């Protein structure tokens, strides 16, 4: 799978990437905010999955999800991975177009399970 990981923290991008590599995924592209995420989407076609943080500078995760929904990449499923844990936030993200939601802190097993739920694999 080709996966886009969007988070302003290089640590979190590394942790998520390591989780994905542990699942056997190796085609992982990183972006440090939503703006860069949109650029990466247009520069690299054929993404199968996006994982995005919420609180980022320039373009935050919610704005990024909405942007993706309004683009040619709207069919790519998005999982929000964030510290925002309140129910209202989860609902907001899902309404914007996220297919699933992971609250930090998380274990690799949680990421694996959420991907499975989204992709049915």
């Amino acid at each position, binding site marked *: 799978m080709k996966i886009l990981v969007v988070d302003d923290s*290089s*640590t979190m991008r590394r942790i998520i990437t390591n989780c994905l590599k542990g699942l056997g995924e190796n085609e992982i592209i990183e972006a440090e905010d939503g703006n860069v995420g949109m650029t990466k989407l247009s520069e690299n076609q054929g993404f199968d999955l996006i994982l995005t943080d919420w*609180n980022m500078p320039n373009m935050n995760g919610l704005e990024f999800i909405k942007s993706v929904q309004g683009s040619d990449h709207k069919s790519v499923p998005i999982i929000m991975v*964030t*510290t*925002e*844990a309140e129910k209202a936030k989860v609902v907001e993200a899902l309404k914007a177009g996220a297919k699933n939601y992971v609250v930090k*802190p*998380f274990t690799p097993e949680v990421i694996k399970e959420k991907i499975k739920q989204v992709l049915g694999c």
Partner: protein
Amino acid sequence: MFAYILSASKVEGNILVNVLKKQGHQTSQISMPSEMDKGLREKGDTLIFVDWDNPDLDRGLVQDLGKTMGNRLFIVSANEAEPQLQSIVQGGESQFIPKPIEPTIVKSKVGTVRKVMFSKMKLDAKVINAFIQAVTNTYETMIGITPKREKVYILEPSDVNTAADSLFDISGVMGLSGDYSGSVVVSFPVKLALKSVAMMLGEDEKPSLDSEVRDCVGEIINIVSGQAKATLSTTDYKFELALPTVIVGKGHKVHIHEDSPTLVIMFSTEGENFILQVNIRPANG
């Protein structure tokens, strides 16, 4: 804290304003008690300075204020022996400031009141528990170890940034805003920061506090703050989080609200201590 200065002359009022502002207080000079905002006047940390010698002053009102304000009422006068003044000061906790006003006396008396106030201040157990849980959960989930809670205490503002165990070598700082504002800090000694980062990433320990280590500490405070925020979202303690910042270097300081208690929770893990520091107050306080 907020301070009203009632019925003072311009010169004396300015002396009081200057001293109080240097101590970090907001001030308002008024000529009538009716000019005081009811909410502010009834707030538990508002101070009132009254010029007793002003002939237009309603001294009966000052008597009433003395009963409710206690040591937060300061009566300024050239005549300490005046019987009605004496009855207010000796009958309660109200404080006397002699004229001509000496800034050092004002500073000392206000400082004593602040010390007493802070010694009585407690942080709601909900806040304490939410942050303890957040640190423990973050460490257990992302780093794989359970930190031990060593001690929990409140620091007076003058001790924050100076106490021996306040901040270590690298601190992640999160600003809070909204109904409640302030800051949350997680602070590590170098060795523990390097060890925690290595365990979090599942990689070899870095030799120094490089950009990746700093980013990781920023992410730790981000996750801890987010967890606490979520736990407290069903209580009165609602706040939003800023983007985290990281400060490196011995002796670094973090700005705090000086009229709010600072909670310090010391944890130990892997043979070393780290601390969580929380300074929080109502946004309109």
